[in-house]
């Protein structure tokens, strides 16, 4: 095993994949144990996207995500403990327990949620980018959303405005082929989403969302264009969710075979295999990385368990800002 910047970087990506997967698996158990409540949307199967994309973004770029955003929060650097505490509804959660699974914010990392209105994050991302453009800051706003959002009017209005005004938005469409139970073919008259996006006169490419390195490279290239002032870019990340839409979903709308076929491309198995092939990863190292992820998530759970409750007296805090923003 020879360490190099390349191999270190790759292992870093693998570390992200492992900790997100571990986190999500823990969530399943914690949901059954009623520690986590509300709607819970798992990222299992799609981890390569958050892991790859976040590796390609800068700290002062902004990130806007959806209700399926645990992976994005973790990969962006929000401590697993703060995320888990949030899902436990604790005062120590990244949103003091007010947001929950669907609304993870961390402004110190420029993570602006966690939006549970499908398509609702896009206009806000356009505005964040507008603020950067008006203030001549070479920053990117990365906006994640599912392919289901493409049918919403807010998608259309946002792509048009961003393209028209050449705003620095990076649209990252996670095409996992289903919006709840609705397959892409039953949602879009044009199922080639990159082609669709290109009709707004912006660069748009598809990429294999199961390949973490391809994701990183593509997002890096796209972000560079956006940062360079060339206007918005759209990337379609082709992926699949291995689990049901949420904990309520009986998952009746797709076949076991289809799921099995996609599972063969699970980044959690393919990427370690690739790194092995390259000679960058051995059994011990993999076991150590897994143990590290296990430990981190176990600690996060313990932290969340030990957390406190926001006082009920503070119920109406934060409805209005307490002081002028700087």
């Amino acid at each position, binding site marked *: 095993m020879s360490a190099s910047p390349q191999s270190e970087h790759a292992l870093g990506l693998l570390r992200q994949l492992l900790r997100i997967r571990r986190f999500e698996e823990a969530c399943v158990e914690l949901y059954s144990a009623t520690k986590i409540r*509300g709607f819970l949307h798992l990222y299992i199967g799609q981890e390569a996207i958050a892991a790859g994309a976040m590796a390609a973004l800068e700290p002062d770029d902004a990130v806007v995500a959806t209700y399926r955003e645990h992976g994005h929060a973790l990969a962006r650097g929000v401590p697993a403990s703060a995320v888990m505490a949030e899902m436990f*509804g604790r005062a120590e959660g990244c949103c003091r*327990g*007010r947001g929950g699974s669907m*609304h993870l914010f961390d402004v110190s990392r420029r993570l602006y949620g966690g939006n*549970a209105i499908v398509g609702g994050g896009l206009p806000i991302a356009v505005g964040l980018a507008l603020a950067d453009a008006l203030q001549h800051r070479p920053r990117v706003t990365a906006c994640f959303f599912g392919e289901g959002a493409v049918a919403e*009017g807010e998608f259309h209005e946002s792509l048009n405005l961003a393209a028209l005004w050449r705003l620095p938005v990076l649209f990252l469409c996670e095409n996992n082929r289903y*919006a709840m*139970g609705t397959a892409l073919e039953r949602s879009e008259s044009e199922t080639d989403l990159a082609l669709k996006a290109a009709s707004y006169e912006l660069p748009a490419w598809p990429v294999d969302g199961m390949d973490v390195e391809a994701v990183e490279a593509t997002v890096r290239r796209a972000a560079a264009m956006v940062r360079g002032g060339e206007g918005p870019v759209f990337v379609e990340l082709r992926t699949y969710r291995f689990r049901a839409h949420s904990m309520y979903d009986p998952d009746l709308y797709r076949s076991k075979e289809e799921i099995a076929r996609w599972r063969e491309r699970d980044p959690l198995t393919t990427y370690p295999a690739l790194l092995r092939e390259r000679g960058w990863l051995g059994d011990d190292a993999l076991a150590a990385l897994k143990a590290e992820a296990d430990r981190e998530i176990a600690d996060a759970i313990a932290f969340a368990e030990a957390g406190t*409750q926001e006082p009920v007296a503070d119920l109406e805090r934060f409805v209005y800002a307490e002081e002028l923003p700087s």
Partner: protein
Amino acid sequence: MSETTATPTRTTTTYRAALREAIREAMRADERVFLMGEDVGRYGGSFGVSRDLLAEFGPERIRDTPLSESVFVGAGIGAAIGGMRPIVEVMTVNFSLLALDQIVNGAAALPHMSGGQFSIPLVIRMTTGAGRQLAAQHSHSLEHWYAHVPGLKVLTPATIEDARGMLAPALADPNPVLIFEHGSLYNAEGELPDPPPAVPLDGAAVRRAGGDLTIVAWGGSLPKALAAAHTLAGEEIDAEVLDLRALRPLDTTAILASVARTHRAVVVDEAWRTGSFAAEISARVAEDAFYELDAPVERVCSREVPIPYAKHLEDAALPSAERIVAAARRTVGRGG
């Protein structure tokens, strides 16, 4: 009312299944009826109401739509004008904001603007309310916004009988009718006569008679109101519980009749207090039964905060049986 003389059979069912049976019955009875919305078909409905209907009626009549609230609601309007009897499901009232233009500027206004040349026999169903830790973007109670709009009708079934029975008259109505299903009610169990009785849309219903005060409630607040009445009974306060059943048209007569008997009223509304529908009811009571009232009307509403995720905070934000009891005690002069 049905005319059966023999004791009717009774079946145990749920609010969810009752809604489903009502759709099934309507679709069997009338070819023009169809159901349209996000995930009503293959997924089975986001809250499971339409499960199994796709198998019976096929994808032409159980239509899965893309995520496009505005167009599929607008298409419901157009299809109704075109002679169909659409049932449009919007997953939740929160998302209905994306279709509000079509409902308010379209469905409610077009027939009148045309001078009465046509009507829009459309039914729109949606979930409303909080209580399941779904946080701020999935917990609104906005049925009163729709109840504000002339041209619309607004139903709020709170019982299994109404869940089963309100769809038929809604579909028979030539006007756009919105049906609000409170998310906390879907799993409610109860009995229903078999065959189920016709449910006329003839105004509010007294769900518990009582002489000391009137508790006005609807939808998801009805169980809380009844629980409060039960507690109050233990304190020898005899509360009448009035289930509005519809917010538009509003059965003012029933409200005033009850208050004329009890002289005191508590109104329960899961919306935020300021600008709630409870305000409308409180105002009507105080305006129209001014000389009947022995105490100020009390409102039990949600606290003025986007509903938080954490259970203890959500519980604190919403109306509860305890808060209703406390308000009732105040109206009868037993408050703290």
